[in-house]
Each structure stands twice: as structure tokens, then as C-alpha cells.
């Protein structure tokens, strides 16, 4: 569909500031004096719950992200995504009703081997079309929601043109703070975000595709992250993995692609009793040629030497591009090798 230019410009500008980040975000900060007053994530970051499940309006960008690896009634793998993004257009942080300077964006997707359905919503802040509250927890945009009394039990729901889903999520493990007490570094220059996850959700509910409803169950993974800036102008984008091992252990892993090929790596190993960050020097993330289409790699090899991990990753559906206003690739994966399991892959910043 050819969208009109004006809408595209508008959304594109909004999205430039959003999570996906962009090559010139650093420039934006330097050139536009207004933007520098956004605070950075300090070293002494102290994340507290339930307060920090909510919105951090003083920061420019924030998201609540849920992905689920499910099985349908026939035992076929199925991926599900629910995301709420928040971005502030101005550092002044205007909060007053329609005058609010925040933009919210929702993405939802349902992916199986044959199809990848997605939908996008956009809203302005201040008028409760989209917002996040903490007690009880509720993140919503229009009639899409992720809500519950706390992060132990949540319900998620969204719908698109030909799909709809409602899942109940029950946490079977603790919340995990990435990096140093939740301060997750994204570049060698020290750019950081506040980032924690709940990777231990058991998910159960129903999905509807083209009017057909069926029961589904599996695991789900929730992320909450906020920052002033995610990548610098020397970086193109990132490849992010959430891996569920058959053993019940979890691995969060990403590489931020530097323009000079000197990539930045980070990861967290998690199980029900605890978690620890990985040593970046031990991480090897390599795409396997050829690309699934002109832009994205959907087969990867991951090695973590000190964990004796050597796995090959394959997308459940290579055509899982989120053809939203700012496109990226996000879809369920499965992996085999030294370990096996499933998970989710996100690739941003590729030329589209």
C-alpha cells in the first residue's frame, strides 16, 4: 500500500526518535539544544517495583515488549508479539491534555509457518488513548492491553485486520535486571538503557486467525526498557535474541552493529534461581548467508565459548518483517545444536 507522503514523513520523524533508534540520533541531540535536557541512565540506577513497571516520562523513549512462543492445537509453532512504545517529541515534557508532547505506538503480530499478520496503532499522550498505570498494572493503546494486578499475572490482548488474541500470563520465575542492576550498556561509549525482563511467563489463551479461533499455550517473555537514546550515530541497528532453552533456562543476547564492523555485544543468562551478565568477549553472533530476502538474515549461528554453547538458529517464518511505518524484522525462531529450544529474533536498522 502506498501511504501518502505526509503521513509517512510524520510517522517517520516520530519513529526516528523512537526505540528503533537511528544513525543520526546523536546528531539530533547535538544540534537540538532542547533534546539534551533529557536525562541519561545514571550508573547508580535503582529499579524498584511496582513503580518502575510504569512510565518514565522524564526519559525520551520507552517500551513494554511481549513476545510469546506458543503451540497451536495441532502442535505447530506460533509466535505472538505485543509492543507498546512511548516517545516524547520534546524535552519540555508537556503533559497537559491534548497539549501533551508524547506519542505512543502499538505493534501486534501473530506469526506461524505460513503467515505473518501484524497491525500498528498510533496515539498521542495526555488523553488516555494510550498510557501505562502501575497499581494495578495496565499498559494500553486503544483496546489493546497488557494488564494485571502485578507482573506475576498478566493478560494481554490485541487485534488486527484478520487476527485477534487474548493470553493469560503467569510468571514462573523472578524478574531479571539486565547489565548492572538493570543498567544495560549499548555501546562502547557507555550509552545505556534501563532494562529488565520477565522471561518466565507461562502463557495460555486463544488466538483467532481469519475468524477461526483456537486454544494455544506456551511461554512468553516480557521486556521493559527506557532511555534517552539507544544507539549512537556510529551504529546502524541491532540484532536481538530471546532464547528459551528446553532446560527452562533463558538467554537474552544482542549485538549493536557499529558502522566500522566493530560490533557491541551483551547478554544475560537466566534461570529460575538467578541470572548473570555474559562476558562480551565470549559471544559470537554470526548470520548465515544467504539472506531470507534482500534485507534480513533469518539463519544465525551463536557461540558462547565459556558456556559451551553452539547453536544454529532458524526463523519459523522467514517472512516476518514488520512492515510498519518504520520497518523491522521480528518473529519466532527455533534453534538446535549444543542446545535446543525456541525464542524470538528482532533485527533493526537494515536498509529497507
Amino acid at each position, binding site marked *: 500500500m502506498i*501511504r*501518502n507522503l*505526509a*503521513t509517512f*514523513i*510524520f510517522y517517520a*520523524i*516520530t519513529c526516528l526518535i523512537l526505540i528503533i533508534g537511528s544513525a543520526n540520533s546523536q546528531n539530533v541531540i547535538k544540534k537540538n539544544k532542547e533534546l539534551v535536557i533529557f536525562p541519561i541512565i545514571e550508573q547508580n540506577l535503582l529499579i524498584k517495583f511496582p513503580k518502575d513497571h510504569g512510565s518514565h516520562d522524564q526519559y525520551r523513549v520507552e517500551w513494554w515488549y511481549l513476545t510469546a512462543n506458543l503451540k497451536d492445537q495441532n502442535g505447530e509453532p506460533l509466535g505472538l508479539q505485543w509492543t507498546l512504545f512511548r516517545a516524547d*517529541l*520534546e524535552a*519540555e515534557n*508537556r503533559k497537559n*491534555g*491534548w*497539549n501533551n*508532547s508524547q*506519542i505512543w505506538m502499538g505493534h501486534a503480530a501473530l506469526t506461524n509457518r505460513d503467515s505473518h499478520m501484524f497491525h500498528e496503532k*498510533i*496515539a*498521542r499522550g495526555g*488523553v*488516555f*488513548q494510550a498510557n501505562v498505570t502501575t497499581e494495578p498494572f495496565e499498559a*494500553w493503546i*486503544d*483496546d489493546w492491553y497488557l494488564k494485571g494486578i502485578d507482573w506475576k499475572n498478566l493478560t494481554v490482548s490485541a487485534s488486527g485486520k484478520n487476527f485477534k488474541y487474548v493470553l493469560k500470563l503467569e510468571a514462573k520465575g523472578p524478574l531479571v535486571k539486565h547489565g548492572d542492576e538493570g543498567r544495560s550498556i549499548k555501546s562502547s561509549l557507555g550509552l545505556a538503557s534501563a532494562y529488565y525482563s520477565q522471561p518466565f511467563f507461562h502463557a495460555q489463551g486463544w488466538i483467532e486467525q481469519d475468524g477461526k479461533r483456537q486454544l494455544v499455550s506456551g511461554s512468553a517473555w516480557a521486556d521493559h526498557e527506557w532511555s534517552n537514546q539507544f544507539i549512537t550515530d556510529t551504529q546502524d541497528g541491532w540484532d536481538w535474541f530471546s532464547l528459551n532453552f528446553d532446560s527452562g533456562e533463558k538467554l537474552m543476547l544482542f549485538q549493536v552493529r557499529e558502522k566500522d564492523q566493530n560490533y557491541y555485544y551483551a547478554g544475560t543468562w537466566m534461570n529460575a534461581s538467578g541470572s548473570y551478565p555474559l562476558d562480551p568477549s565470549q559471544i559470537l553472533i554470526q548470520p548465515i548467508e544467504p539472506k531470507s530476502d534482500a534485507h534480513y538474515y533469518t539463519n544465525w549461528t551463536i557461540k558462547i565459548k565459556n558456556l559451551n554453547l553452539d547453536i544454529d538458529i532458524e526463523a519459523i517464518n522467514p517472512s516476518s518483517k514488520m512492515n510498519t511505518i518504520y520497518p523491522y524484522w521480528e518473529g519466532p525462531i527455533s534453534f538446535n545444536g549444543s542446545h535446543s529450544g525456541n525464542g524470538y529474533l528482532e533485527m533493526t536498522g537494515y536498509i529497507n
Partner: protein
Amino acid sequence: MFHNTYVLTFLAVIKHWQIKPLQLFLMLLGLTTATALWNSVHLINGEAKKAYADAKIISSFSENKMLISKNEKDFDDKFFGELRKNGWPITPRIEGEIKDNKNGVGDIIRIIGIDPLSASNETITKIFQTDLSSDNFLRGYRVILAGPETAKKLSKLTKFKSVQVSNNLPEGYDLTDISVAQNILKKRKKLSSLHIVGQMPENLNAINSRGLKIHLNENNIDLDSLTKSFHLNLTAFGFLSYLVGLFIVYSTISLAFEQRKAILRALRSLGISSTTITGLMLFEILVISFVSGVLGVILSYFLASALLPDVAITLNGLFGAKLKNSLSMNIMFWSSSIGISTIGAVCASAPALWKTSSLNPIESARKIAWYEKTKTNLKYQIVIVLVLLGLIIYLFKFGTGIFNAFLLLGAILISATLILPIFLWFTLSLILKYKFKSPLMRWFFSDSKQQINSLSVSLMALLIALAINVGVGGMVESFRKTFNGWLDQRLVSELYIRTSDINASQTLKTVLDGEVDAILPIVRVSQNISGLPANIYGFEPHQTYEDHWPLIKKRVNAWKEINQNSGLIINEQLSRRLKLGVSDIIEFESRIGKSIRLEILGIYSDYGNPKGQIMLPFELFNKHFPDEPQLRIAIRVSKNSVVRIENILNKKLAPDKIEITNQVDIKNLSTKIFEKTFEITTTLSILTLGIAGMALFTSITTLGENRNSQLAPLWSIGTERKTLALFEILRSLSLSTLTFIFAVPVGLLVVFILTNYVNLEAFGWKLPIFYFPMQWITLCVVTIFVTLFSTCLYSIKLATASPAELLKACQYDT
């Protein structure tokens, strides 16, 4: 020397106007009036078209369906977020007006506040056609878009400095982000409407509990096509007046040619080529038409200014179109006006110019054999009439649409004008069969007969004007009579009340219980039925409707079936446009978009309503449109108790809760709108008659110039000058009276076409025809006066002519 020849020849040619200044004056007057009438109609149509185009742009920013508060006032903006959370695909809108008081002009600027994020893609495309980055629209600068003039005013008027000129926006409007609009309008935390941009949820509780209702965007009606017929009507009248005006030019120029023949022949004998003479005469016409064009523009401005308020009231009353009460004239208008004047003048003088170019200098100066010429002309006319009659029969049988209706009207009028000389010829021939005792009487009729040709053009103009006057007058009076009777039927309730909310309605019902004869609530929803904007009314079946509702077609037991909820009734417009009759099934949508199919039990007349209408008994209405609040209530009460009931209501309910309208007030308002509608056509038809009168005056006056030579022999054989003058008056009178007699049936045919074809196409309803002989008598008297006035100048001159003049005329008679 070379130039001198042209100058001298031109001076010789135009010398004629110095001798006959009246002729020049009449020609200027004719051409000026014709141009002015034609232009004023165009000026009005142009202004209206601009207003429609503006309305179209503005309404293109709106969706078809929207939520508004049940009391149709602004409402709390928190509903937006709440309803979006309930799955309602809505985008907010705040609208309002600010007055440009600071400039002392008091122009109204309409502010429209939108939310570009939730608006539909289509709307966004339309709004951001400019170079404006939509990012700026929303960021701290919060740009206000406005047309160039409005932008200037707005910059002075508000503290917002980020006004950006947009050539896509009509003047008088400004478009901005909702936050800015709320500030400007001082409507913080308020919304006017929530436009629906997608599929509505089935559950309506969410909107009902917030006091909102679904409303059809009535501004999305295509005003252009809806009012097309109305404007075509104006154009037709303008053209008719223009045509009648050109008759004057034609008769004056033709006569001037006859009178200038001698000098033209002399010029040819002096060796000046016919091309030069024709060229100079053409130049003369161009100068005259230029002057008339300029005068025509000025006159048309005043005329259009005078007519515009009526047109504005009509278009607003009938179609909801809003026109500004100001006219704008640009260079295009000036040039087209002068162009129209020139084209008309050149066409009207073409025959005379043609004759000039083929003028033979040695041709004997014999007078035209009038009788023979008339006979030949009549033969041609009969042929044309036969062709036109064929066209008329074809159009009667197969013609549809407003254009064909006007074509039919045109063909009938042209045929009638061509038949007129034939009619006069045969009538006078019939009279001449009578053996007159007085030879003078015989001469009188024979002479009249031979004058038909020279007077025929102005008599034709008179015929058109009279026929139009009989036609339009008949239609207007028929309408007035029907409309008043119909209003008595439709507005039978004594009081019509509108309440602000459902509680007020409830209080009203409690207060009036036992005090009045009947309380009849009426509810309304809007919807497009097969692309036609329509209102669906819910009503409580009651004896009042059965006794008074004007059903023009119905099932035998229509009301009984309505009481049993077996079907509905629709208005004539809807029936005609959807081609649905009694016992047919009509299909429309319930509130949630489900198809409803119900039987039509009756069709009622609904004059003045451009929209379709359905009347559903309450039980059926509530089934398909549940929870629509009853805010409109009709009250039946004895006439004596009206004031008492009004007092009770005013005492028990606060003024902001209730709006009481008296039956009489509604009737007056409705009648006023229609008076205005037809006032325009009446004014134009009277102006046409005025011009026709002038045409007659011109013809008779100019003809008089030649008459002496024909009358002198009679004087020489002993007829007194006074008698001759009286004969001249009688001759004109008899010819114009005969024309009037002929005009009446033509006028009735015009009424028939107007009511059965033009109105039907223009408004969607048919009027019964009534006859108004008193109107005809008045017109006849007017015609006699016009004729008398036209003849008197010449007759007085004849009665007081010196014998020498008449003798001189005898001398030159050949």
C-alpha cells in the same frame, strides 16, 4: 488622406445616432439590461459555486459518521480516551467560531481542531497537501493553517503566531491541532464531535452511557449536485432575459439599417467599398457593446447584490448551504461580461451587417413589399415549427433529467414565438373575411396584418415574457396554495418542543400529563439510503397522524398496518429517487449496520425537503435504533390552552432545558423560506416582462419613423390625424392583446413543464396545478398599459404632425 476617408465615412455612418438619439439610447438600454441580467445570474451562481466548493473542502476533512452529544452541545474530551479504550475507532474534533471584531468588520472565522494521529489516512492526505511538515503541526510550534486573508486576520487576532498560509483552505476557516483550537475557542477539555474512522463495535452501551449518539455528517451532502437544478433554473431565466434584451438590439439595428440605406448607398456611390462600410458599422457595434458591457457589469453588481440575500436564504433553508452576503468581481468577470455584450450585439446585428455588405448602390430605392416578405417569412417559420414540434414530442415521450426539462421548455417557447406571427396572420385573415362596411376598418386590419412582420420580433419578446410570467406566476401561486394547505396538515400539533436531555423530556411528560390532549415524541437518525441522504424518524402512531398526515399514495389499511408495526411510510422524494412505490420493500441499515428490509405502506408529500425521509412507528424504530433519546416532542392541545401550557413549561423547566416553538412560528418560517425562493424567479420574470415592454416600445417608436409615408395617403383622402393616431394605438393594442391571448395557453404549458418536469427534477416533488385567472387579468392590464405607453409617444407625434410633414411624405411615396 487615407485615414480621413475612414474618419469621414465613420462620421457619416454614426451621424444617424445624432439624428435619432432615442434609438441609440434604447439600443444601449436593451443591451445593458440584457447583459446585466445574464451577468447577475452568473455572479450569484459563481458565488454559490464558490461556497459549495469551500464547503466541500471543509467537509472532506470529516468522516461520514460521527458521535455527538445527545443534546448536540460540546462534551467532555475525556470520552475520547475512554471510547478508544472500548474499541471505538474515533478521532476527535473541536469546532467553533471566533469573531474578527478587532478589525471592526465582524467577519467570522471558523476554527477546526483535529488530531492528526487518530484521523483517517484520507483526511490526513487532504489536510497535508501543503508543504507543511505534519511534524510541525503537532510539535511545540503547533501550526495553524489558514487561507491567505484569514491568516492575516488570525495573526492579529490571537496570540498564536505560528499561522501558516495554506492555499488549499477556503477563506474564513482555519485548521489546527485540537490543543490549539481548544485554546483559541476557550473550550478547554471540550470536544464537538468524535468522527468514526472504522468499524463500529456492536455494543452501544459505551456511547449511550456517556450521553452520545451516532450522527450522519450532513455536510457531506454533495451541495453541487443537489443545488444544480436551482442554479440551472436561475441560468435559464438569465438567458431568457438576455435573449429578450437582444430582441431590442435586433429591432433597433434593423430599423437603423433601413433608415440609413440612403446614406449607405450614397457612400457606396462615392466609391467606398462595402467591406469598409460594413467594417466601420461593425466597429460602431463594438463600441456600443463595449459601453453596454461596462454598464452591464455595474448594473449586474447592484442587481446581484439585491437578489443575493434571497438566494442565500433559499440555499440555506433548502439545502443547508451557507453563502456569504458579498460578491466578488474579478478581471475574468469584467471581460466575460463585455464578451457577452459583444457577442450578443454582433449576433443581433449580423443580419443588418450582412445586408450592408451586399448593398447594391444602383438598386432602386423601393420600399420593401411588406406583404410578400411577411408571407415568405411565415413559410420558413412553419418549417422550423414543425421540426421543433417533432423535438417536443420526442422530449415529452423520452426526455428525462433536468437538462431535457429545460430543453423542452425552450423548444416550447421558441415554437410558440414562431407560431405567434402565423397565429396573428390567420386571426387577422379570418377577421378580414368579414365584410366591413367601413373601408377604413378594412384598411385598419389589412394594415395590421402587413405590420406583423415588422413588429413580430418585439411581439415574440412580449410573448416569451408573458408566457413566462403566466407560467412562473401560476407555479408560485400553485405552490403557495398547496404548501399552505400542506403545512396545515403537517404542522398540526400546536406546540413543538425540544429538550436538552432525557431528564428534561421526562419532566415535561410528567408535568403535561393530563394537561394536554396528546404528547407525541419524535426521534430522528440520519443515514444514506442508496447514496441518498435521508432522515429516519420514529413516531408514536396516533389518531393525529391518521387524520392529518398528507399521504398521497397508500395501502387501503395503511394506518391500521402502521399501528400493527407491519411497515413504514416514506416521503415523495425518497419514493421517486429510489423508484419505490407502495408495497415495495425498502432496505436501510440499523444503527450497527445490519440490513433492515421493511414494506412501504404509504407515501407522503414533503415539500421543501431536499432529503429522503422515512417514518417508522416507535416500536420498529426502537428495535433497530435502540436508546435514541426522545428530545423532540409535539404537543396536541386546544388552541385556547397553548399559552397556558407554554407558561407551565417555562415555570417548571429551566430555559436551557427546553426550547418551545409555536406551530405558527414554524409555519411562518417555512413560508418565508419559500417566499424567498420564488421571489427570485418572480423578480426575474417581471424583469423579463419589463425588457419585453422596452422591446415593444423600441419597435413601435422606431417603426413610427417610417409610418408617415404609409399614413399620409389616408390623411390626404380626408382621415383626420387624430383618427389616424387612434388607429395606430388600436393596432398596437389589438396585436399585443392577441399576443396575450396566445400567451395564456403557452404559459399554462410552461406551468405544466415547470411542475411536472423541472420542479420534479430540481426538488423531487410534484405540485398540483391550479389556475389563477385574476393573475392573467392583471397581466393583460399590464400588457395594455405597456402597449399604450409604447404607442403614446408616437401617436401624439402623429396627431400633432404638421400638414407639411404629411404632404412631404405623400410626395416621396412610391
